[in-house]
């Protein structure tokens, strides 16, 4: 009984400690961010390329098919009410407000988050970070902050591309395949969607971008410096990002609705 209690105490104390350490780590990242953004923009550009430009293919392919399936599902359900023309609205709301930010964040965690975490973890395992410290180079602004900023900057653009390609996918399915009238399709979207909805999507994408990049960088930086540790860090990156993104999505939607 006492060991059980002690275990419980140790686990919760460890949880609180990790949580606190994460907050301090985030503050360090954010404190260094403006300086790096100005003085080492070349490093940030390289990371935008790594996390953003290299994720484009997966984002666009997934967006096309998500939009297409929204078109199919929306059409078959709306057809029961003779409201097939509204399939565009259905897909536009779904993509811009929810699926765009959420699926992009999940794909981002899988494509870019894992590579960030494993890259940093491997640098740590091969003592590259310690070597930098020996040379009086602080690895936080030099290695971590550009990767964090790259993710934060790339994310809103990825979400926008996802939503746009998704709408195009819906257009392909609904207009070309199921012969919904093209004018009604776009006009309904333009009447119903307004700037507020797009702002909600952009706000979500920024929040998810910060969360996903920060978790990836944190997991990599705190990986146990062994092959197994790096592997676990990448796994944890995906799991934690998925949970955080979906919980945040619920909270933001509840607040903004």
């Amino acid at each position, binding site marked *: 009984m006492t060991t059980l209690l002690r275990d419980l105490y140790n686990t919760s104390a460890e949880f609180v400690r990790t949580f606190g350490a994460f907050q301090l780590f985030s503050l360090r990242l954010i404190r260094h961010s403006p300086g790096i953004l100005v003085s080492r923009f*070349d490093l940030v*550009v*390289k990371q*935008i*390329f790594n996390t*953003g*430009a290299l994720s*484009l293919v997966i984002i666009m392919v997934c967006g096309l098919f998500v939009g297409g399936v929204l078109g199919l599902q929306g059409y078959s359900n709306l057809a029961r009410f003779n*409201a097939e023309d509204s399939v565009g609205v259905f897909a*536009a709301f779904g993509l*811009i407000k929810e699926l765009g930010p959420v699926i992009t964040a999940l794909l981002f965690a899988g494509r870019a988050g894992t590579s960030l975490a494993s890259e940093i973890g491997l640098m740590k395992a091969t003592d590259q970070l310690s070597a930098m410290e020996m040379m009086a180079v602080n690895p936080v602004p030099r290695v971590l902050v550009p990767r964090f900023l790259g993710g934060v900057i*790339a994310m*809103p*653009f*990825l979400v*926008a*591309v996802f*939503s*746009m*390609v998704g*709408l195009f996918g819906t257009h392909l399915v609904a207009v070309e395949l199921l012969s919904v009238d093209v004018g009604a399709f*776009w006009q309904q*979207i*333009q*009447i*119903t*969607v*307004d*700037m507020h*909805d*797009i702002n909600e*999507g*952009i706000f979500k994408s920024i929040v998810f971008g910060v969360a996903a990049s920060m978790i990836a960088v944190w997991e990599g930086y705190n990986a146990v410096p062994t092959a197994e540790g790096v592997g676990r860090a990448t796994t944890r990156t995906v799991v934690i990002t998925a949970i955080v993104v979906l919980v945040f999505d619920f909270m933001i939607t509840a607040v903004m609705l």
Partner: protein
Amino acid sequence: MQQTRSVEIGTGLFVLLGMGALFFLTTQTTGGDDFSADETYRVEARFENIGSLRNRAPVAMSGVTIGRVTSVRFDPVTLEAVVQFVIDSQFDQIPDDSDASILTSGILGSQYIGLRAGGSDTYFEDGSEVLFTQSAIVLENLIGKFLVNAGSKDED
């Protein structure tokens, strides 16, 4: 050097594509504000029932949007809905006996205020009130009336 150059080109293309997508979303999927006027004047109208009219609903005359609803409130004394809307100042020759009705675009579309010109020589100005209004048509009431009618015909 070649390496950095292709990275920079790739990043530039990526950011341009992202901005293009954002631009597409903001301009093509929103109706934007098809009504944007620098100078407007306020007009009030009282309705018995406004249906589901809400803020920012368009105010149209002959089908063209000339204004926008700015506030909807309830008058506790007269027990009516008071709708305040603004009209673009360039349309300053709307007769003040024009009537306002709440219409629906399409069968299940959103509601808007439709103005129909009257014949007066004086015009709406800032703070005017619409004298003749027609409430929103509530589908349920319409169906109710229809059913009552159908029922009374059977008895004849």
